[in-house]
């Protein structure tokens, strides 16, 4: 990207990495450069390709194209262990150590100090103690690792990696389960290691932390490199735009402009609805014939809101109403009974039943709603399946094919068909266009509009802001697991959404400054 005349010699150079899983291109010619002694943040939304990139670098996945150079020499590790031997260590969010063994045993696993074939326990403990002291940790190294906090486990994993003469340390969401104080400890260690010339890759979706600790930032989106910047000279708004927006083109809401603002009937409403530790209480009104978009960064509470609304998660406060009447939404069954439908983000694990046919997948929710004793006859099933295969143009148009053999876009259409068959009043769509090829992408967006015109209420989550702007009548913006803003009509555009998402960061930094 910029500064091709790199004054600082690079430690890890990744050039032109591509990786596909079947037809899905997870990485396309991605470059990444890590200098010795720097902390480099690797950012991107879900599905951007961060994890794939890390796994390709560390040899967990074989790469399709591209090269990796470490200290100028080309490396091609075939496994995480080989990568470790080459000097690239990775510490994952879920620490890959053995909680039932002692801290010392974990540190020296596979390389215990031996004498006459017997592990020298005392020697091992002494060395473990010294090693951890270097990280400012004074603990009983004979105690099981599992008895310590996640923070200590992380530091242990890092200490082990560094002691194995790692030159590159990759930390994948290390702070996700740490409290503020523990994050400080971790950051101190990271700075200390960087000072010793180790290059650190820091993957996180906490932007405040990224700004606090990183020297440079690389952003990926949809498997492509968006850019590499110096953290100090990258405004937060610009960063979020790199992560979310397709380009700076100001898409305005086609709907807001063309449709009159008529008072529509309320379909479902939620008052002070929330769950402790999940999403802060929110008010939300969903009206017939209206699309409400949920925008926010990864982990901002979008999916959590969707699950509460549908009943996949049980709220611990607030009141839900459907067509004005108070209802209880404790289980998905409750949601289905009240005419709600939910297409989850994780299609494969939460959506389709891969072994069953397209027909069976389509009729599943309708059959569950009707109950056991009122089975749909085979003829009815065939007819429903045929109708929706035609209506949504599901390909191949064979209702008897196992749904697992279909492409992502067609699987998504099958899920939509499953809910449309139940004649719902409200559909909740979580990232309906993720991992779908361009053609199907446009079709799904067209479908969302059509459904809405038919009087359905829709709640749609998407990371693609211009997409949200295109179809939403209202946009609710989330941040840190709370609803923070609602945009309507003319106000719906990418700039305003970005501003709402970014606003908090500045406020939080200011707040930190005062504290």
């Amino acid at each position, binding site marked *: 990207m910029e500064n091709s005349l790199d004054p600082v010699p690079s430690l890890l150079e990744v050039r032109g990495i591509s990786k596909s899983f079947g037809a899905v291109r997870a990485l396309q010619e991605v470059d990444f450069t890590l200098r010795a002694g720097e902390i480099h943040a690797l950012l991107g939304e879900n599905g951007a390709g961060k994890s794939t990139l890390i796994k390709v670098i560390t040899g967990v996945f074989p790469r399709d194209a591209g090269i990796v150079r470490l200290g100028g020499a080309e490396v091609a590790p075939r496994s995480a262990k080989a990568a470790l031997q080459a000097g690239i260590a990775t510490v994952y969010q879920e620490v890959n150590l053995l909680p039932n063994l002692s801290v010392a045993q974990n540190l020296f696993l596979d390389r215990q100090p031996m004498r006459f074939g017997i592990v020298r326990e005392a020697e091992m403990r002494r060395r473990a103690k010294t090693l951890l002291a270097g990280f400012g940790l004074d603990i009983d190294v004979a105690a099981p690792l599992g008895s310590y906090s996640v923070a200590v486990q992380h530091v242990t994993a890092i200490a082990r990696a560094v002691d194995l003469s790692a030159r590159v340390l990759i930390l994948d969401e290390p702070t996700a389960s740490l409290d503020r104080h523990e994050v400080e400890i971790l950051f101190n260690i990271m700075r200390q290691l960087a000072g010793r010339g180790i290059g650190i890759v820091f993957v996180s979706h906490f932007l405040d932390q990224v700004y606090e600790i990183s020297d440079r930032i690389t952003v990926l989106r949809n498997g492509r490199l968006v850019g590499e910047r110096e953290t100090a000279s990258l405004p937060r708004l610009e960063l979020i735009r790199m992560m979310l927006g397709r380009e700076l083109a100001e898409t305005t809401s086609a709907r807001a402009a063309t449709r009159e603002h008529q008072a529509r009937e309320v379909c479902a409403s939620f008052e002070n609805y929330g769950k402790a530790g999940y999403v802060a209480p929110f008010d939300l009104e969903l009206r017939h014939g209206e699309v409400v978009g949920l925008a926010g960064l990864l982990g901002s509470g979008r999916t959590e809101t969707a699950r509460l609304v549908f009943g996949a998660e049980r709220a611990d406060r607030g009141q839900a109403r459907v067509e004005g009447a108070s209802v209880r939404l404790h289980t998905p069954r409750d949601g289905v009974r009240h005419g709600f439908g939910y297409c989850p983000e994780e299609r494969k694990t939460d959506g389709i039943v891969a*072994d069953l046919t397209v027909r069976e997948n389509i009729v599943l929710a309708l059959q569950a709603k009707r109950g056991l004793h009122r089975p749909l006859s085979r003829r009815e099933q065939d007819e429903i399946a045929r109708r929706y295969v035609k209506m949504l143009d599901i390909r191949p148009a064979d209702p008897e094919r196992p749904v697992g053999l279909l492409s992502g876009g067609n699987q998504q259409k099958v899920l939509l068909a499953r809910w449309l068959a139940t004649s719902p009043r409200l559909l909740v769509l979580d990232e309906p266009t993720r991992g779908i090829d361009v053609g199907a992408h446009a079709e799904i967006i067209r479908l969302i509009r059509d459904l809405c015109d038919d009087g359905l209420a829709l709640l749609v989550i998407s990371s693609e802001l211009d997409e949200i702007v295109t179809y939403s009548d209202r946009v609710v913006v989330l941040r840190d697991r709370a609803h923070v803003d609602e945009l309507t009509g003319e106000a719906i555009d990418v700039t305003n959404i970005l501003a709402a998402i970014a606003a908090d960061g500045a406020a939080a930094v200011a707040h930190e400054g005062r504290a």
Partner: protein
Amino acid sequence: MTALLPRRGLAQILALIVILAVDRVVSPQFFDLRLQDGRLFGSLIDVLNRGTPVALLSLGMVLVIATRGIDLSVGAVMAISGAIAASLADSHGLAVVLAAALGAGLLCGLWNGFLVSVLGMQPIVATLILMVAGRGIAQLITEGRIVTFTSPDLVWLGNGAVLGLPVPVAIALGMLILTGAVVRGSALGLLIEATGGNARASELAGVGTRAMILAVYVWCGVCAALAGVIAAADIMGADANNAGLWLELDAILAVVIGGTSLFGGRFSLILAVLGALIIQTMNTGILLSGYPPEFNLLVKAVVVLAVLLLQSPKLPGLAGIAARLRRAKA
């Protein structure tokens, strides 16, 4: 009803035909049937009769396995229901005996289902509890003795005949039809297959996956209890130590031979029962052949391997390798 007769039964039917042919070779009278006192006799009838307990077990087991579960306790449940039936047979009417024995099976199934679906225990561990404890319960009921009875009603259940068929065979046939009608006649079949295929997705689609799982364990318990009553009626007594011993493994085997994956999802009732018959046809054939019964286990293993190989989706790949090897030689 087409769902009852899946297209994929070919491997099992072929296997059964091959084994029957081998049986015919080792025992020339194998296909002979004769009618005596209104009941058919012959090796084929014997296969059906002896195969009844495992066939009944496999009817329940196949549904449990379809939900991605397993029930190791069916052998122990057989022992319990047999012990109850034998203890009550000479003092109570058949209706009471059956109600008590089957009721016990239902309770056992509820217990298993509760552990798996409500408490979320792993099926193999949850049912292991009753597998161990159940035999103890049966021994407590029989007070450690072999309880015998003479009640003609119960003896008829094990040794009588209906329309020329042994009563156990008629009962198993009836249960197959009943289970098929309930499962495929209602939406249960689809919802069980969906639950087994992807429980999370099914739950989000509004399927009552917990109720579904509870129901299949209950049905499995009832089927096992019925098998236990028939086994006891057959020998006119209950032996808590040996009734149904290791039969859970035969039942699982029957289900697997029948093409239902231990990973849940698609299942076939008829093929599971066919699996049970394949096992019994082998057992009977080996007995008739005069080989020492020790061979039984080995032959069983070979046949199981053959059937599973025939079903393996990777077999065409193996055939391809073989073809390439042949080409290389030529």
